[in-house]
């Protein structure tokens, strides 16, 4: 059932939620936006065209987090997972969908990450659809869209003076019990906006058959070509909502075992104890990054591991654009004869 939330009523509603949740919303800090706890008197910021710079995956898989504490005299204790209820308001559909992809990594039948699990269970996600999709985004190309419902408990459509609220789960319904139903006219207007937003997004590349192209061309000079100007930094992967690699280190002086974000784009990521590195250069590392998203995820869960948020495109220090890389990949031969 669709409801109507008047914008001048939003602050009251956020305050109500703050009574029993820690509420996160995009807010300006320095010159860009982050998902931060919404304190009394602070307002969410939605006027920027693009998304928060750091994806909200960081609220579930923090950039650095202590897993356990130990002392030099023996013994250790696990750091408890955060369990307090949280509400993330204004998460964009690309980032919410990314969380559902990451669930397949962290919530597997046999191996469930307790930190991820408790945070996911304790969090309700209120999404804000993108009625003006950003230029670097390509969500529709990868099977998502500016109003993708995946992973969300409710989704908002901006109708100007008010939001149309579509509740998607029981958790979502419980948040919006006091609101009036949307009229037929409001529903129709929202549908039009959503459709127009979807249709405004060009197809960034042909996604059909991309896995086969990447697989068939594993040994192609293509990888050297597209990685030639790559700096080998971690911007694309750290800002990616679906990248999840981590490294676990012991900070002995502080007595903590810490999990830090790591990335396949770093030399040390695949460096083995013997000194051998199976991905010795940026060529192999770039191949890993693209193939993981567009081939290996497909093998594992039959979904592309990219939600088209466009952060990697926007913030690459040398202007590398994954869309252009994949367009180029589609020009490669489908079958390659390998010399034995």
């Amino acid at each position: 059932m669709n409801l109507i939330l008047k914008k001048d009523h939003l602050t009251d509603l956020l305050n109500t939620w703050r009574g029993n949740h820690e509420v996160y919303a995009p807010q300006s800090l320095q010159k860009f936006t982050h998902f931060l706890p919404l304190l009394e008197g602070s307002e969410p910021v939605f006027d920027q065209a693009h998304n928060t710079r750091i994806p909200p995956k960081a609220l579930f898989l923090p950039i650095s987090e202590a897993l356990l504490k130990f002392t030099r005299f023996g013994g250790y204790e696990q750091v408890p997972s955060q369990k307090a209820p949280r509400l993330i308001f204004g998460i964009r559909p690309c980032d919410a969908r990314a969380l559902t992809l990451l669930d397949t990594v962290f919530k597997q039948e046999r191996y469930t990450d307790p930190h991820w699990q408790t945070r996911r269970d304790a969090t309700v996600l209120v999404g804000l659809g993108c009625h003006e999709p950003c230029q670097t985004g390509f969500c529709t190309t990868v099977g998502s869209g500016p109003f993708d419902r995946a992973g969300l408990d409710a989704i908002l459509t901006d109708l100007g003076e008010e939001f149309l609220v579509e509740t998607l789960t029981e958790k979502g319904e419980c948040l919006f019990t006091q609101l009036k139903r949307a009229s037929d006219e409001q529903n129709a207007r929202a549908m039009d906006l959503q459709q127009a937003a979807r249709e405004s997004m060009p197809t960034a590349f042909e996604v059909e058959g991309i896995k086969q192209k990447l697989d068939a061309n594993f040994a192609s000079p293509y990888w050297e070509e597209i990685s030639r100007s790559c700096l080998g930094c971690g911007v694309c992967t750290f800002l990616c909502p679906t990248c999840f690699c981590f490294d676990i280190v012991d900070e002995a002086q502080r007595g903590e075992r810490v999990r830090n974000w790591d990335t396949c784009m770093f030399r040390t990521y695949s460096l083995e104890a013997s000194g051998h590195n199976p991905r010795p250069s940026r060529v192999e590392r770039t191949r890993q990054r693209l193939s993981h998203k567009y081939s290996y995820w497909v093998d594992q869960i039959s979904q592309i591991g990219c939600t088209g948020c466009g952060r990697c495109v926007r913030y690459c220090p040398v202007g590398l654009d994954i869309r252009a890389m994949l367009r180029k990949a589609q020009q490669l031969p489908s079958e390659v004869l390998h010399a034995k």
Partner: protein
Amino acid sequence: MPDIDALKAEAKRILDEGVVEMVIGFRAGDTPLHPQPAFFKTAEEVDALVYDPLCQNNLAAYLTRFPKTQKIGMLVRGCENRSVNALVFEGRHPREALYLIGVPCEGIIDWRRIVENTGEEVISVVEQSGGAILVESKAGSFTFEKSALLHESCSRCIHPNPLSADVVIGEARPEGDPALARKEVVDFAALPMEERNAWFRQEAERCIRCYACREACPMCYCEECFVDHISPRWTESGATPAGMQGWHIVRAFHQTGRCTSCGACERACPMDIKMTYLTEKLNEDMRQKYSFEAGMDAVTPPPFSTITLDDKSRFVI
């Protein structure tokens, strides 16, 4: 604005005549704000060469990737030329195997300054012949004075002209004012310690440890960076205050007498972290205490890279 046709002609000539095997320059980006570093191997490929104020990378960062025997051509602005000099001094590439096409530099535009004013959805950026910058974005059309958009490193640049290029294309620019370069350092030093500390922490602790600053820097070419060293570990590797502060301090210190003030580190940072105030302080110390500026030639040893028998600090000899 450099004469792009003259640049292309020279790049083509050195490829055609076999002076070099490759020319490092820029080509148009896939997005309007980011031209991409490019590696041209044939004269035909050079047709794609672009050179505009959005070309934000220091191309000398690529030099250390190639075999020392490879003959490389490179487009260099003042800072890039100095980086090349510093790298040649450090034995990273023989000067004889380089052909530098110098371009007197009018400064690099910081794309962040554009989007602050035009909104994030930029459609096109055009430099007009008078030097004005015309930006089309979803929010409308905007015209800027280039000086208002320059990256801070470029606003205070002392040496915009290539110093040791094999050919220079374009009119030499007036040298910058060292007093202007010094101003930020002096102003910052005048702040109370608590304020300086608060600023340092605010900037450093935004770090996500992606090392874009390191990878964008021509002088950060170590096979193994100190932060990647396992035994002993020199610093925490996580995004903890100690780890983030440790990275920013030691990164800057390793640049002492080597940094050419290009600002590529800051422009590469996805978190908009200010870093050049640290390296500029070290650069100013080098000027004041040793009358030294990095990369002014390829033969003068940086003060911290040299030992003489009359060194006042006897501990090293």
